[in-house]
């Protein structure tokens, strides 16, 4: 195996595009090294992104935030302004693994690992985040929900990599939240996860919302019916019940050792409701 540590994005793309063998991106490494260890991956080369300065930075951009692909979860959690704007995205990312994992794991890596249970992804999708994809043919910007296409698979072409996640401007009276169910309190993979982001107007009516579910389908899914249940309401009990029903209806999970279909369908609705209440409070809405 070759270890490559480019210092510019162009070098990274060039290395990735020109390599004839199995060439993998190394951001935090908390998935890649586990795969290598368990013989699920045996790359010919890895391209470490952490020597590229821009990939290590959290930068204000167009009123929102650009988060480099090598920024760790811990660094996001320590960034007070980012946390103030997008607490749901940060709390979702900070749920991944242990303190040790947080020192390395990245949001872009969590996205490109393409697990349906990835904690940061429903929160990013709810936030309306986009991935900036760089490749041999230039740069394109893609809604994050279009990156994973199936468990372990992405829409990235040969030579392409995600160099940053971009969160939009939060704006006044907006709030987001992410909740997941796990059978213990820490160090586990979501049985169901739900991200909610919403905006209120001056009298507390919801003017915009996005809702996403994790671990209930082969990829994280957007639930427009759930968002519609909130928009135009005061996010009151009736709206929350409609949101909950829409999320349960949209959930198409499988039975596995972590949860049954029935349980996941039910919990999708419960988590959506609770996450929406938190998002509403963060947006400055009345209790």
């Amino acid at each position: 195996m070759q270890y490559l540590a480019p210092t510019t994005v162009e070098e990274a793309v060039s290395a990735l595009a020109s390599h004839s063998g199995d060439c993998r991106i190394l951001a935090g490494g908390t998935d890649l090294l586990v795969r290598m260890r368990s013989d699920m991956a045996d790359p010919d080369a890895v391209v470490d992104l952490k020597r590229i300065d821009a990939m290590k930075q959290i930068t204000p951009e167009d009123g929102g935030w650009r988060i480099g692909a090598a920024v760790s979860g811990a660094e996001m959690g320590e960034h007070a302004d980012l946390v103030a704007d997008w607490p749901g995205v940060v709390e979702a990312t900070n749920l991944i693994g242990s303190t040790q994992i947080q020192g390395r794991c990245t949001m872009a890596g969590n996205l490109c690992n393409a697990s349906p249970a990835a904690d940061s992804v429903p929160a990013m999708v709810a936030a309306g985040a986009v991935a900036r994809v760089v490749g041999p043919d230039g740069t394109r910007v893609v809604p994050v929900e279009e990156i994973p296409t199936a468990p372990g698979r992405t829409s990235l072409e040969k030579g392409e990599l995600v160099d940053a996640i971009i969160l939009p401007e939060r704006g006044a009276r907006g709030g987001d939240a992410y909740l997941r169910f796990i059978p213990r309190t820490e160090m586990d993979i979501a049985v169901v996860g739900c991200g909610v982001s919403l905006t209120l107007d001056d009298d507390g009516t919801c003017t915009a919302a996005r809702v996403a579910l994790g671990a209930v389908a082969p990829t994280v899914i957007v639930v427009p019916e759930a968002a519609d249940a909130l928009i135009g309401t005061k996010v009151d009990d009736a709206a929350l019940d409609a949101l909950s029903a829409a999320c349960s209806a949209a959930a198409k999970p499988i039975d596995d050792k972590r949860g049954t279909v029935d349980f996941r369908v039910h919990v999708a609705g419960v988590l959506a409701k609770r996450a929406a209440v938190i998002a509403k409070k963060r947006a400055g809405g009345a209790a």
Partner: protein
Amino acid sequence: MSKIHVTTSVNGDPTEFLCEADETLLDALRDRLGMTGSKEGCGTGDCGACSVTVDGRLVCSCLMLGAEAEGREIGTIEGMAEGDTLHPLQRKFIEHAALQCGICTPGLLVAAKSLLEKHPDPTEEEARYWLAGNLCRCTGYDKIIRAVMDAAQEMREAS
């Protein structure tokens, strides 16, 4: 394939080693540098026995390549005591009998030291969450948490 030459700092000492591209930092520390304090439990980032700090940040050395250590400052359990003087956490682990077999102890000490550098006055809940990535199959954690809280108090009083 020729080996990679890595120049780094371990516990403040300038250090060089040669490693394979796919060799973990944990293997480099143990097999190249003879620093066997960091343990391999799971090898997949679940147990924390291999905990070290990299530029002050707590990480699993089993989930990092040795080559990535180039130019970084690595902190390991071997750097915790000063000569024969144990770190307060080490003393409190002994006083509270916060270990049995000892395999998890280096990782727990490195992780607990990192906690107290960042949060000198943690609540018990904060300590438990911070150390959730360090598995101990002997003690049931209670003695470990008591030792950490006791060490934290002593370190605060001493500072």
